[in-house]
């Protein structure tokens, strides 16, 4: 059994959905390169007023009361993605019908356990499509092509029991079979107006007059055309994209956030329908003078919470604002399995992932990008070589580490502070640091360290551990001598 849904006048429906002000007006959609733009479709009111497909833009504009609107292919692609998601909810095997944008055929064998009988399924399917903002006709027939013809030719829901296809198609006009203009003219000349009349003709006679294509049309009219289904295997990730072109250039971030909220919502709905979460959001802002501003927000854990994602986007865009006014925005998402973790019964062992992301974004804004995170030691001989990595605490787990004695911590001077040193027999005896005169009370060293001698970044120094005493203070420090710059500096204080 196949269920086919067909949103009639798809392009016009999309235009009305995206621009609510068009809903109560007569409008015609135009497409093509200016000035050779032609009307591709029009809504019911515009058709009544005289607009029809194939007119030039100028002709359409002369009809009073009809608004002429340019078609936006991005909106249609986005609407198709919505319909595709709806279709995927009802069957794993779906096929997009050729020559009818927005029309999908679903193989519903074995779906009765989930959605009830055919009529119930058709009803639920239509309601889902209407909830997504589209009007559609639904047909449930055993034959694939018969279902397509019925959905295109009959309003609302049609359910045809097996074996009654020809009967159901009998009264449908011939255009549902999608004949070429020439064939349609021939049939019109013969006085054939409906599928039933075409089916009543003898097959061999029809073939002898219109050729082999007549056989196929005859089979279609009888509802007996064979069809091999090629189910779509769409890339779900590719469908996670939203685009919007702005009527007026936007400078401020606040109005942009309203649009981003709507787009994030749509993406989240799509992702949630597959029980997934958003692992990455990529915003592409098309700016004035052809520039592009791209930002990637990558939460440490996949999120399915709209306010959190939106706050992250806001903080990121505030930290890295675009350099010019925004003309168009695109939002891409990447999905991943949502994060699950067992926390403490009464107290959280670690910050909540969503709140942590926002906290980190706020801290990055306050302190700087490279100054917030976890630290990772580098495999390097240079003392204190490290890199900052994003803070993502692993799941709470107790770890047993071998118990050593307490380690003396070194407080590092970043950058190292230059000091004056008085030497006796190549060993420091006095240190002048921050306006204070320290006497070297005890000394250990020198420890000669060097590295990366093979490259430009080679380094070497002599390190000394010294106990310094002034009148009132005493401190243990590590001082170093750089033989290349012949400069002494304090590396840090033991504390």
């Amino acid at each position, binding site marked *: 059994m196949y269920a086919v849904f067909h949103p009639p006048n798809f392009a016009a429906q999309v235009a009305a959905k995206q621009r609510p002000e068009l809903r109560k007006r007569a409008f015609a959609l135009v497409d093509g390169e200016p000035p050779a733009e032609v009307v591709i479709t029009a809504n019911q009111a515009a058709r009544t007023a005289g607009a029809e497909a194939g007119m030039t833009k100028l002709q359409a504009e002369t009809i009073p009361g009809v608004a002429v609107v340019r078609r936006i292919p991005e909106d249609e692609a986005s609407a198709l993605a919505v319909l595709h998601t709806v279709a995927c909810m009802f069957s794993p095997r779906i096929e997009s019908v050729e020559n009818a944008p927005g029309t999908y055929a679903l193989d519903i064998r074995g779906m009765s356990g989930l959605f009830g009988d055919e009529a119930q399924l058709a009803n639920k399917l239509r309601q889902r499509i209407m909830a997504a903002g589209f009007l559609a006709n639904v047909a449930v027939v055993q034959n694939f092509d018969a279902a397509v013809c019925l959905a295109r030719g009959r309003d609302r829901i049609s359910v045809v029991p097996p074996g009654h296809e020809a009967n159901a198609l009998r009264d449908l006009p011939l255009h549902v079979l999608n004949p070429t203009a020439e064939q349609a003219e021939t049939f019109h000349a013969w006085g054939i107006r409906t599928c039933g009349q075409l089916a009543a003709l003898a097959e061999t006679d029809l073939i002898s007059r219109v050729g082999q294509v007549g056989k196929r049309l005859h089979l279609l009219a009888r509802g007996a055309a064979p069809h091999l289904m090629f189910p779509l295997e769409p890339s779900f990730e590719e469908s996670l994209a939203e685009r919007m072109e702005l009527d007026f250039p936007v400078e401020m971030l606040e109005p942009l956030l309203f649009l981003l909220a709507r787009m994030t919502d749509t993406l989240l709905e799509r992702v949630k329908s597959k029980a997934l979460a958003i692992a990455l959001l990529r915003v592409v802002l098309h700016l004035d003078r052809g520039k592009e501003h791209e930002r990637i927000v990558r939460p440490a854990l996949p999120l399915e919470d709209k306010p959190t994602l939106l706050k992250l986007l806001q903080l990121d865009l505030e930290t890295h604002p675009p350099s010019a006014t925004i003309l168009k925005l695109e939002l891409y998402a990447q999905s991943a399995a949502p994060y699950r973790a067992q926390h403490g019964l009464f107290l959280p062992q*670690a910050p909540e992932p969503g709140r*942590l992301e926002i906290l980190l974004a706020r801290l990055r804004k306050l302190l700087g990008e490279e100054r917030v995170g976890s630290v990772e030691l580098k495999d390097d001989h240079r003392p204190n070589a490290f890199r900052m990595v994003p803070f993502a605490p692993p799941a709470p787990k107790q770890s047993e580490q071998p118990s050593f004695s307490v380690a003396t911590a*070194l407080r590092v001077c970043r950058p190292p502070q230059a000091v004056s040193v008085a030497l006796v027999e190549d060993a420091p005896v006095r240190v002048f640091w921050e306006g204070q005169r320290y006497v070297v009370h005890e000394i250990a060293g020198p420890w000669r360290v060097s590295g990366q001698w093979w490259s430009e970044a080679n380094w070497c120094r002599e390190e000394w551990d010294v106990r310094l005493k002034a009148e009132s203070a005493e401190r243990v420090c590590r001082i170093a001598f750089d033989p290349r710059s012949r400069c002494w500096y304090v590396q840090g204080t033991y504390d």
Partner: protein
Amino acid sequence: MPSSAAIRLQVETTLANRVPAALTLKIKQAPELFATGIAEVDAVLNGGIPRGCITEIAGAASTGKTSFGLSAVAAITQSGAACAWVDVSDALSPESAAAAGVELKRLLWLRASAERQQKITSKPWSRLEQALKATDLLLQAGGFAAIVLDMSDVLPQHATRIPLSTWYRYRLSAEQARTAVLLLTQTPCANSCAALSLRSEPAHVRPFNSNGETALYEGQRYTLVRERNRNEGSMIHQKKPPMRAEWPAETLWSRVR
């Protein structure tokens, strides 16, 4: 004439909708304690530093404040909880942290920087301000078992100018978030907001060449003096003498011997 108990009951009943138990003293639960990983210090602190309170450690340079802080953070991260280190002077050495046994993945390191606000780089205010704001954000977010606010290199004249309201706010937030706030300073500045106040001092000096002919810095002994412990269930009027703990800290290379 109604007895005081009756008046009290009457007042409490009238205010019951607005303030529950207005005239009854709130029974304070003994706070949960985090072991610091130093047995000598834990013995003096009756188990460790309190959760949901401010612990202040004041002392001059080279008196073991950072070593103590890292040891406490190491013990907490090893229990599986997350910690944060707010570094006013950007002085934390990741090598020292790793040597102390800190699980680096569970430690959020916030490094205040002077470059963010070019105009006032000569003063420590930009760094301090950033660090205080960051601590505020961390406490509001919650979920961190301990937050170390490292102001060891901030001069006393600057640290004492931090408004007392900041510490009051931290105390309340720490209590609500059940976070242990560890404050490392040169001079006490949180005053009465700190539930536990410690003073760090150097203990007796171990000479560099104590273990052989080659002079080598192998470690230090420090003293931690308990000045005040608010959570101690002792008599208020009897002033207890401060208790001291002496503890050793060793350098990495001395472990190899």
